[in-house]
Structure formats: C-alpha cells, structure tokens
C-alpha cells in the first residue's frame, strides 16, 4: 500500500485531553488534495510493534501544504493515543496513508445537518470548508462536556457564525435530536460523529422519523478491542498464529509477516475482509461493515476489529 512520509511540524494542546498535530511532507513537497470528511491512517512504532490508527483530517481540503489531525487521549486504549500524546515530538518522521473518505458529503443534498460529540468534531472541520466553498445550506450542532473540552468552539464560531450551535453538558444545554430532525426540509442530509450513544440516538431518531436511509450518515472508528487470546490458522500461508489479548487479528497477521489488505483499520471500509474456511466457536464481530446476516453466517470476518472464541479458526489467507 502506498504510504506518505511526513514529519510532525507542530503540536498544540487544545484541551486537557486533545492534542492537535500538524504534518508536512518530509521532502517539503505538497500533500495530495482531499475531500471533506477524509481520514488518514497513522503508523507508529511502539516498542517494535506497529500501531496503525485512523484520524480525520481537519484542515481545509484546499490547503495541501500541511495535514492536521487531533488525537484524544484514551486512557483505556492499547497505547496508540497515549503514545501520540507522550512520545510524538516536533520533527519526528511518521508514515501515513493517502487520504480515504468514508464520510463524504452528499453533494446533491439541499441542506446538511452536522452533529458532533466531543472529538467527533474532527471530520466536520474539513467538511465545513467544503460546505462554505460550495455555498451550501448547513447547520453544525456541536456537543461537549464542559467549556474547556470544546476543542474548536471558538475557531468554529469564527468560521461558521450563526451556523454553529453548541451544547455544553456542564451548562445543562442539551441537543434535542427529536426537535432538530423532525423539522427539516425535504432533501436534508444528517451526518453524525461522536460517542456511540450519540451516534445510535441520531440514527434511531432519524429512522423513526422516516428519514431515507441514504440521507443518514455516520462515522465511528472503532479501536480494536482488548479480549481473550485465541489462535488462527492461515490456510494459504499454512501457518498458525497466536492472537494475544491486546493485539487485533490483523496486527497478529502482519506481525507474522503475512501481507493482508487494509484501509481504515476501524471496522468501516471492508477492505480487510477475510473468508472464514472453518470455525468451531463463536466469531466476535465488532465491525460496522458486515450485515447482520453476514455476521450470523460465520463465513466472513473483518480482522481489524473482530475476534474469535474457540480452538479453531481457519482463514483463507
């Protein structure tokens, strides 16, 4: 897979938990242009093990001198975000993928309602640049815990003006999804990115109000969950691999030197899908890609976030 060599040009602590990183190309040339809502996967080497995490690009897609991402420190994570916060310094070289967009704006939409919770604001930062350039009709609804956690509220107020609506838990101002989504003109699209309960509530409210499925958009990258260790057999490579508690299946496959396809590594894009040849136990599907019936069939698995229980899992790889 093609990767881009970048170096860290700046790091800014924007809230107690969020750091903003600026990347430029290592050779000083321009970065590829991208579309609002895109992300890159950042590779970091932690004690000899490569972690790859997806982060939304926050800058304007029209600016290709630098890329901007923000990382929230996740204490219970497997170390990726903590490493980004504590060990990544200005000047450090990193490898990132080309931008990928799994959360693009519907260009034919008549109106766009963007709903962000906390760090979920990041993909909207680049989308807003696109919406403003296109002169589109939009509203940004941004919910966060307390004033000091509103990472980009001031900056957004400046660029979005009256289009921005903030909801702050500590001030007891709350977003009323029912009211917001029940009074929108035909042709409106809704986009949500944030903590799981917020995403689920938005999707359910919109569906219950009869919104067409293709007017409802969400993005929620998953971190590979920590779980019980298990073993996998790769049929074509003819090897057996142990997947430890803190590793994902995909990481274990890569660590064993077997090349596997991937893109988002967050259970969204579908690129790393593998065929299951044999299994004697349960597959623990954690992805947002496979349909419920595909999950139930036990014929396919997304190794970036899913796990297994049992003695035998044979994959077509």
């Amino acid at each position, binding site marked *: 897979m*093609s990767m881009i060599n970048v170096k860290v040009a700046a790091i800014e602590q924007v809230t107690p938990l969020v750091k903003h990183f600026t990347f430029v190309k290592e050779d000083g040339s321009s970065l590829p242009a991208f*579309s609002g809502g895109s992300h890159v996967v950042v590779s970091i080497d932690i004690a000899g093990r490569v972690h790859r995490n997806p982060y939304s690009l926050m800058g304007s897609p*029209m600016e290709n001198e630098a890329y901007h991402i923000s990382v929230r420190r996740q204490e219970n994570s497997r170390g990726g975000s903590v490493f980004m916060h504590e060990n990544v310094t200005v000047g450090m070289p990193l490898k990132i993928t080309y*931008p990928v967009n799994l959360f693009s704006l519907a*260009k*034919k939409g008549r109106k766009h309602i963007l709903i962000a919770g906390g760090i979920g604001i990041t993909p909207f930062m680049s989308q807003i640049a696109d919406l403003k350039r296109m002169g589109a009709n939009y509203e940004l609804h941004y919910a966060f815990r307390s004033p000091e956690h509103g990472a980009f509220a001031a900056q957004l107020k400046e660029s979005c003006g009256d289009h921005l609506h903030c909801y702050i838990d500590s001030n007891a101002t709350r977003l009323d999804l029912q009211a917001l989504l029940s009074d929108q003109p035909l042709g409106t699209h809704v986009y949500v990115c944030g903590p799981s309960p917020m995403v689920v509530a938005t999707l359910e409210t919109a569906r219950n109000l009869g919104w067409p499925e293709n007017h409802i958009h969400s993005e929620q990258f998953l971190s590979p969950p920590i779980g019980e260790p298990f073993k996998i057999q790769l049929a074509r490579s003819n090897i057996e691999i142990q997947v430890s508690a803190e590793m994902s299946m995909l990481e274990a496959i890569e660590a064993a030197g077997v090349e596997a396809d991937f893109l988002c590594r967050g259970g969204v894009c*579908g690129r790393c899908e593998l065929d299951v040849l044999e299994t004697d136990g349960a597959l623990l599907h954690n992805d947002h890609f496979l349909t419920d019936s595909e999950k139930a069939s036990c014929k396919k698995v997304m190794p970036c976030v899913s796990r297994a229980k049992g003695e035998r899992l044979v994959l077509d790889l």
Partner: protein
Amino acid sequence: MASNFKKETFREDYTYSNSDAAIKRFPFPFPEDQYMYSVNIEPHTKGKQGSVCEFTFDIDEHYVAECLDKKITLEQDPGRYQALPHMMDAQWDFVELTMEALAQDYPEHFSLKKQGLIWTWENKPLGIKDTFTFGDTSTLAAEPFDYIGRQLQGDFVLLDHRDETLYADAGIVTSQADWSLAFNVGMSWREWHGPVPRATELGVMDRALKYLLNLQIGSPVRRLNWTMTVNPRLDTSPENYPHWGGERNTVNAENIGDLIHLRVELQTLFRLPRSNAIVFSIRCYLINLKDIATYPRWAKRLHRVQKTMHPDLIEYKGMTKFHPMMVDWLAKFDDGETLAIGTQPE
C-alpha cells in the same frame, strides 16, 4: 513514444492504419486460450518502456487524428458530453490529473505552468495555449472537463461515489463500443451493467464495485476489455447505428482480414482527491486481423479464444454475423502448438 502524428480517418474512407511499432505495442488482451469474464483489475503502475502502460495516459501516433474525429462527433451530437451540476469539483480534479500527467510524461508536447491558481496550459500538437484560473469556470471557454477531455484520446466518465455505489454523473464519450452516454448518465453501477450477460450471475459486478469503492488516491487501477468492430471506426455509438451497423453486411471471406478489427479498451480508474469521485477512462485501440496475424502467437491465441467463445458473448459483442467466418479465417494460422500463458506478441 510517438512524435510523428499520423493523418488518417476513422470514418467514411477509413484511412486509419497501425505502423509496425504500433502493432508490436498493441495491448493484446488474451493471456489464455479461453476467455471468460473476471475482475481482471491490476494496479495502474508504470509499464515497460514503449508499452501502452508506460505513462498515466498513453499518447500514440493516432493522437491528432483521434482528437479531430472526437471534434467531428461532438459537433454532430453535443450530447456526447454531459455533466450534472454537482460534478464541478470532479471536473477540476480531472483537469489537474490529466494536465499534470501529460506535462510530466510528454514534455516535448505539453506544458503546464502554475503561478498559484493561475495556470497556463500548452498543447503543441493541437496548437492550443490558454491561461486560466484553476477552480474558476468562467476563465475557460468551455466547462473544464469538456475543455481537456477533447484534448485526450479515449472516453472519460466521472463517477460520483454516494449511497455505497457509483453514479455515472458526467462523461465525454465519442469512441464507445455501442453504449450511449445520453442513456446512461445519472445511472448507478448496477443499472448500467444490467445488460452484461453472465457477469451478474457470476457475482463479478458486485466484487468489482466493492473493489472500486475502496479505490485510493494515488493508487489507480487498470483492466482490459475487448470487442470486435467492422472497419476502424471509433464512433460505434447506438446514436449512429445507421452509419455503421450495416457495415457488418460487407464482410466476406476475401476482405475479412482487413475489415474486422479487434477493439481493445484500456480502462483505467483513478480516485479524484477533492471530489472523492472516480475517473473511468476508456481508451480504445484498434487493429485488423491481418496485422494481428503478423505475429503467429497472437493469431493462434485469437483463434482458440474465438472458437471457444460462449454464444451469449458472441451475441452481446455483436459478432454473430461474421463470427464463423472469422474463426475459419484464423484457423489457418493455428497449428495447435501449446502456448504459454501471456499476451506478448512473440
């Protein structure tokens, strides 16, 4: 790399021909003795020097004549260019992709100078030089996709990526194998592939769509497709069927080697950065049976492929009328020698 552009026609008197070098580099599409649909997609990386895949877009000896033929077709039927309003970002992405690639790969023919958003484009073979503001449509005499699409060989369709599928929402199509942009514009992937026999049942179209939805910026892909055309005609469109459909009746055992052309499409697909759309580029190469037979390996291979062709595909590719005659003509070149897998001429 061609620096001598031929003067030739793709209609009426059909003076089109391939030089020896053009025959040798022809993208022969059959690596095996039998043909069946597959998702034969591979990365569009730099190919061998002199091959049609050496550069991002291939410019060959037919460049000037093809652009002239495209101009005639567009004048007669402006509907061969279509672009829905939400595709303007994709149009500019396309301008950037093509101008940058041509200027880099063929500096003797094309140049692109940028001063911020003020770009100057020069196309020497066609005698074009224009300065415009990137992103500002009012600074070009035509829509950006129309402007540069006329300066390239082959057809281009811009696919919008939404609702987990691809929509053909813009196109400049003048060298098509019997399909209509005016009919297909705005259609989704499954709609426009509906008529392809057997492929849907094989699951080929679903697999290909899934693959393309994950197409990445900076990692274009390519595949070859093929059909057969009577006479070296680029514009075999349904709109102009009366002009070419009847030419099938002129084929006989004496002239078949000159008249029947293998028509190969080098299809390339690129993810566009700002629009997240995909460019589907369809570049048509034509070669008659006689020129194919100058390489015995190709003649033998083509004979076997055609002899074992599924009847549905013979019908779909419009070969019914001359297919038995073509197999007979090719048979005399085939001594039954075992051929190794591969498309090379010798």
